[in-house]
């Protein structure tokens, strides 16, 4: 009898656990309700904030746009190659994300440099090679100051700025932003904290499940 109840408890526990995997990630950013007429009836739909069209040069001096990320979920961050503050920590952690999803055609990584003067594609190439990155799953992108800073602050909600007083000349936040295949923001993780990055990896798997 006792064993039976123990068994039942285990089953219940298992059921509770498997229920957790159906967790759905929230959709972040601004949203706007719109009224549409469908079949003569007025329904309210929601338009979510999305990452707009962009065009940058990558580490191979190839133009990369939002179209290259169609059918992919991706993680984006902001860094610069001569940064000695949080960037090395961020990319030590991002390397784990890269290794975990290496070769997965549904996953991309975008690292935008905020050092628009110094970080040329050839510098980005040398940086990515030294980091051990090959292929184009992890893109290191360069753009004009305006385009990158506006994208960071308006679309990814990450603060970046030039600051002559800062040690390396720039200040920025270390967020890793998770974006779904519809270019909506689905998560923000502190890229300097290994435990946050582990959470990102598990939530990327949850997000990929949505498209199965």
């Amino acid at each position, binding site marked *: 009898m006792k064993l039976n109840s123990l068994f039942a408890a285990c089953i219940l526990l298992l059921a509770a656990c498997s229920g957790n995997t159906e967790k759905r990630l929230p959709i972040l950013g601004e949203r706007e309700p719109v009224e549409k007429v469908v079949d003569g009836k007025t329904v309210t739909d929601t338009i979510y904030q999305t990452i707009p069209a962009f065009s940058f040069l990558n580490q191979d001096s190839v133009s990369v746009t939002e179209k290259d990320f169609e059918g992919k979920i991706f993680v984006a961050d902001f860094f610069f190659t001569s940064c000695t503050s949080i960037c090395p920590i961020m990319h*030590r952690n991002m390397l784990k994300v890269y290794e975990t999803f290496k070769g997965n055609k549904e996953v991309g990584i975008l690292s935008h440099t905020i050092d628009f003067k110094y970080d040329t594609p050839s510098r980005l190439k040398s940086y990515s090679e*030294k*980091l*051990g990155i090959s292929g184009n799953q992890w893109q290191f992108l360069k753009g004009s100051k305006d385009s990158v800073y506006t994208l960071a602050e308006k679309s990814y909600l990450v603060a970046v700025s030039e600051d002559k007083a800062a040690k390396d000349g720039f200040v920025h936040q270390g967020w890793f932003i998770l974006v779904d295949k519809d270019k909506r923001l689905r998560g923000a993780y502190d890229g300097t904290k290994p435990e946050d990055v582990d959470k990102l990896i598990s939530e990327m798997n949850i997000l990929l499940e949505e498209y199965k």
Partner: protein
Amino acid sequence: MRNRIIVLGFILFSGAFIMEACQSEQELNYARYYMNGKQVYEQHCQNCHGTDGRGLAKLYPALTDTLYLKNNKSQLACFIKNGLNDTITVNNIEFSGQMPAESHLPDIDIAAVITYITNSFGNKQGLYDVAKAGADIKACQDLNDDKQ
């Protein structure tokens, strides 16, 4: 009588204390350097070289190459103080990036962080004190002055 016992006890106690202190003064000194060095490391080195001293791929060298640290021991203080632009080979990997200068660090902090690094991450090379750091830094400054 009672006072005598107290005084005697006190003398014995402080005597033992001083003896103890003398014996382990060197150990204490080392511990002090190491602890301060850990703080300096966390503040100035750890971002690139990592909590475990393993560096980052081919971007930032590891601090686990005991032989490299030993062979270049008298250079380490200058590397930290003046930065490093040369290509170096650590753990059989070539590094050519620039290490920024920590020119604001006083000799005592440089000595502490070298003590910490050369006794962590699998290294065990003992105390590197402030006098040694001062002499090493002066030697490489003299060398630079000669070049100019």
